[in-house]
């Protein structure tokens, strides 16, 4: 096995997280925002796996599975909302939803 320095793992994960975050902020299309969220979740998952392998503990993988489940649930609900949104508004522009504020 090739040892990958833990710093590299964290660097990648941080980079992925930032990419995802910028995606969330920059895209107005809700679908892309959901995808960016997915990227952010995976970045966190990567960090957990890296940390788990560093300390030789199973917790990292367990957390990753939790995140996967969470991501699946999130995508399921998110896409459902997205479809309703498309039905009602004929677009998926998230800024249009600001009318929902109290």
């Amino acid at each position, binding site marked *: 096995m090739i040892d990958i320095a833990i710093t590299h793992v964290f660097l990648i994960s941080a980079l992925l997280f930032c990419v995802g975050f910028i995606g969330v902020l920059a895209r107005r299309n809700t679908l892309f*925002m959901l995808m960016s969220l997915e990227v952010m979740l995976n970045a966190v998952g990567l960090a957990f796996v890296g940390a788990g392998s560093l300390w030789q503990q199973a917790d990292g993988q367990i957390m990753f599975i939790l995140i996967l489940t969470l991501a699946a649930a999130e995508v399921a609900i998110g896409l459902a909302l997205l479809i309703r949104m498309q039905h009602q508004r004929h677009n998926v522009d998230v800024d249009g*939803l*600001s009318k929902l504020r109290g």
Partner: protein
Amino acid sequence: MTALTLLPFFPLFSFLVLIVLSKRLSWHIATAVALTGIGLSFIASIVVIQSLNVSASSGEGLTQSLWTWFMLGEHEVRFAFYVDQLTAVMIAVVSGVGFLIHGFAAAYMRDDENYSRFMAYMNLFICAMLLLVLAENLVLLYLGWEGVGLCSFLLIGFWYKDPDNAIAARKAFIVTRIGDTLLALGLFYLFMETNTLNIQEILAQQQTSPLSDEAAWWIALLLLGGAVGKSAQLPLHTWLPDAMAGPTPVSALIHAATMVTAGVYLIARMQGVYLLAPEILNLVAWVGCLTLLIAGIAALAQEDIKRVLAYSTMSQIGYMMLGLGAGANVAAVTHLMTHAFFKALLFLGAGAIILAVHHQQNIFKMGGLLKRMPLISILFLIGIAALIAFPGTSGFVSKEAIIAELWQSKTAGPVFWWLAVVGAFITSVYSFRLVFITFFGPYRAEHELLPQRHGLIVLPLVILALLALGGGYIPTHLEQVFSAPVASQHGPAWLHTVAIIAPLLGIGVAYLLYFPKTESSPAVPGTSSVYRFSHNGLGFDSTYNALVVKPFVWLANINRKDVIDLLVQLISWNTFTWHSAMKAAQSGRLRWYAATLGLGTALLLLGVIL
């Protein structure tokens, strides 16, 4: 004493009848009611004075207590009347002269649509004035004092549709109210020191345990404040000329014969307190002296016949004040009485003239009236003669008596004597200026004269003319009330001569200046700046306007919105500002939320790390 109890309430009753039935009454019935009310008062006054003279030997007055008004601690303020010789003079003048003026007013106001209301106010005034002079204590006196003020307000503003009249009424009320407030403060001070407000008790206390110098000083000063307000003396005199906006009988009754002399009555009544404060007596003399000069000078430049008479009233009351200040109380009160006769005569005569020339009041638009309405003119001239103290008239008796006592008085002196004589000179100059311009020369009015021959116009004038001639010899017994005159012996012999000659000299000067030289030369008002200054009452009005009225109105108006409310609104403004600031964050933009969330987390992390 039923007569004494009912004395002030007869006019009150006729007031009620008139005001309730108002326009339903015909002129005849309304007149009958009004005259009955005051006539009964006059009869009651005579009855009271008779019984006073019967019991006069002891020097005690008559007291009639009606009910307890209220309690000031242990002191009982009663609704009670007190009559002594001073009151006797006052009630006789108020109800007698008042009766004559009511008679005249009935004819003068005959065609007014609110005739009943007018007579009602006049009756109410008489009631308040009688309460004022009859009052056994100062609180009841204050009731009358305010009552006459209110009636004066109502009557000056009787023709309320003209805003000028309403303003004059308001001015009269408010300016006198300043004096009233000082008077009220005087009462508070008096109560604090003596624990009573009963006039006789206060005066009796001065014999046994007199007021301290400081207290007497303050009390006398504050009461003087009340007196100068009501009696139109310096510095609160500015309301009187404007008060001429009222119907002429009102000017005769309130602003010449009765109400304006209330201040004189008050000071005469409280003489016992004033004697303890000679400085204030001196001040009274000064106030009187300055007022009589200033009013005389202003009267020289008036064009409205009623304003001439108004300034003349101020000036004559100045003589009374001067007399009181000098300790010539008997003479001052006698002058009050004779002044009521001849000034009522003058005002009513002026009223008759004004009716005849179609409500024209400018003397420069009259002229030549002596030939056209000789009876009224001669009656008016009798009044003028009394006013300038022409020897033999009532004015001569009383005014000379005042002047005679000035020279030797401890609180006055030669300076006052000279000023009073100069005042007498000015009086006769302005009086004869009025006479020469009004009665001589060509007739200048635009309309034909309406001769007035109604019995109710002429009869009161004739009676008043008789009183103006002989009224000075009516026995008054005032010396029972006042302590002996301050000056026991008189000054140099030439004083008397000079005092008699000064008015006659004034006639001469007026003749030279104002008598129309030819039948055709028109008399014209002066145009010089001195004349204007004098015409405007020596600038008192404009000074007060600039110094008091305008700043007050300005101050009140800039704060109309109430600064304190602004402070309160600051709190709500604060809440609203924060609210709207926070509201901006709640934009509903998901990406904006995410960004702030990220930023916040980053900042927190940064904080943890550092």
